[in-house]
């Protein structure tokens, strides 16, 4: 089974990632645990309410948190795709899902992320990281410790340093 990093440990990736589709109304949705594109969720959420425990939704970088909104709270998993690692829109999406829409389930970064982004990604609320194939996950986890202190308020530390400074 493929591996990923979840809650700062290497774990099995038991979720299928469903590809983007132009036919969200009719596309087949696998019965196994699956992460579906946002447009499939939007088209089919009524019929999917019964199987929500094995359902995740993924947003592409140009789909923003408000398009899922508080509906995210029902889901066990939300993923945000990074088509290229320089596309930083997903950092805002993650913070908004956590801080504005009250999402507390698994928040997964997928796509072209690199290990050197893990520290910032987890600060923005991601707790699960599906790094590209071939990445050395054990080594990558060192990057969670790149910094031992931060200036800003974010998901991992809701108070900015100036409210904590001794």
């Amino acid at each position, binding site marked *: 089974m493929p591996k990923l990093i979840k809650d700062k440990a290497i774990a099995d990736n038991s979720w299928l990632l469903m590809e983007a589709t132009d036919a969200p109304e009719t596309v087949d949705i696998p019965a196994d645990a699956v992460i579906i594109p946002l447009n499939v969720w939007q088209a089919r959420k009524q019929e999917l309410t019964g199987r929500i425990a094995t359902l995740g939704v993924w947003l592409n970088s140009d789909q923003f948190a408000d398009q899922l909104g508080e509906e995210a709270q029902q889901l066990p998993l939300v993923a945000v795709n990074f088509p290229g690692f320089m596309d930083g829109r997903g950092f805002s999406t993650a913070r908004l899902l956590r801080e504005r829409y009250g999402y507390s389930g698994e928040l997964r970064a997928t796509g072209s992320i690199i290990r050197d982004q893990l520290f910032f990604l987890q600060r923005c609320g991601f707790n699960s990281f599906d790094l590209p194939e071939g990445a050395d996950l054990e080594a990558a986890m060192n990057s969670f410790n*790149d910094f031992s202190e931060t200036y800003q308020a974010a998901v991992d530390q*809701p108070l*900015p340093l100036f409210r904590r400074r001794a």
Partner: protein
Amino acid sequence: MYQYDEYDHRIIRDRVAQFRGQTERYLAGELKDEEFLPLRLQNGLYIQRLAPMLRINVPYGMLSTTQLRKLAHIARTYDKGYCHITTRQNVQFNWPELEEVPEILAELAEVEMHGIQSSGSCIRNVTSDQFAGIASDEVVDPRPYCEIIRQWSTFHPEFAFLPRKFKIAVTGSDNDRAAVQVHDIGLQVVRSDAGETGFRVFVGGGLGRTPVIGSLIRDFLPEAHLLSYLEAILRVYNQLGRRDNKYKARIKILVKALGAEAFGAKVEAEFAHLQDGPITLTGDEIGRAQRFFPTLPYRALDNAADALLQQEAAETPAFGKWLTRNVGEHRQPGYATVTLSLKPTGVAPGDLTDGQLEAIADLADQYSFGEVRTTHEQNIVLGEVEKSKLFDVWQAAKAQGFATPNIGTLNDMICCPGGDFCSLANAKSIPIAESIQRQFDDLDYLYDLGDLDLNISGCMNACGHHHVGHIGILGVDKKGEEFYQIQLGGNAGTDVSLGSVLGPAFGAEEIPSVIQKLVDIYVDKRIEGERFIDTYRRVGVDPFKEKVYAKAD
């Protein structure tokens, strides 16, 4: 000036270790070129035409003498014995070895310096007025707010991968010396009628390929909301800024596309969510930042030294010239500001040797409370000199080559490194600067021409701010040959304006005579008290164009 505490030190040390690891992984082939590229850029490391270039931040232009001496040491040890002051008040080294950069950064960290976010698609070093805290026309000292912004923007986790670079400038004076209206965000600190401190907020200004003057989106933002409002602007930009074309990715393009009003409405909507949250500034935090910029322990002086200065100037005319051009008003009686010119003819504008860095440190320790300021015009300011010591400072500065009395004149040009160093440049800029300085080598004539901003960029990325020079020169490439386009009418101050292209470009050898013709027209048309820009605005472009492009009889 600001001093690091244990938190700041820890963050910078962590960064040094992180970059050391990244460099090792890159050299071992574990990190791909395209992955290492943005990581090294966010530490200020470019790969240039001849060698890597390392850009070190000088936050809002303030440098201590300890830092100056460390820069001298680095220039001597890791470079060819010199460095360069940039048009964003930073310091660049042109010849470091990639393998040695982690060590350079470790040395800089000891003196509270770094290259963090000095390049790349992220929030860059915040810039300010080189006379912040000492200018007689200042309303509020902008530096405490600059420091608060520095900390907020350093490793901001949400905004490390923006569509494009992002520059913030802050001024505390109605007389804008920080060019805030040509920044991605420009802030002017103001006091309301009720005595509250706040900000006028401009967005979407910028130079580069598409020069734009920023739009005012908030007339008064109470100081407590500074970071929440910045975060709202950055979030809107991070989500909506274009990422499909790097030439259309700056915030100015987004503001233009949406319209300033609609963009402002989006910011206000986001701000409504963030307002009064945990990043609202506390009085304690603003007070803490302000305590790093106290009134210095000035001696109680009046302006009695003025008579002495007049006498010295009469006896030594060269000193008098320097007083007129390089010495400025200070808010404290008996004190003055001194601008050390880094524009003597024959030296690349803004370049400094290791020995000169140390000489400046000695001068600052002896005469200016151990602090200096870099300027976006690429000079160095001793901010706090007793008037009675000016003659001594002049003599010492002269011995080191800093006393060229040309500040604010045509020969005090802003000039990017250009084609001699930069891999982006279309044309050289340093030799153009020198050829103009040689054309205008008569100081009395130069003074008669008065304040004249001449800015030179070697390509349309506009590091030399040519759009906002009274005379702007832009290097262009025509079928592999270097040509220079002239623009007239730009201005970087409060009455900001962008220059207009005069006409077809010229070869390098023609530039001195072209500038001479432009200046001749100004001298011919000016009325009493007018600067070049004033005359240009009054008479328009036609007389200049006719003279420059007149067919030879």
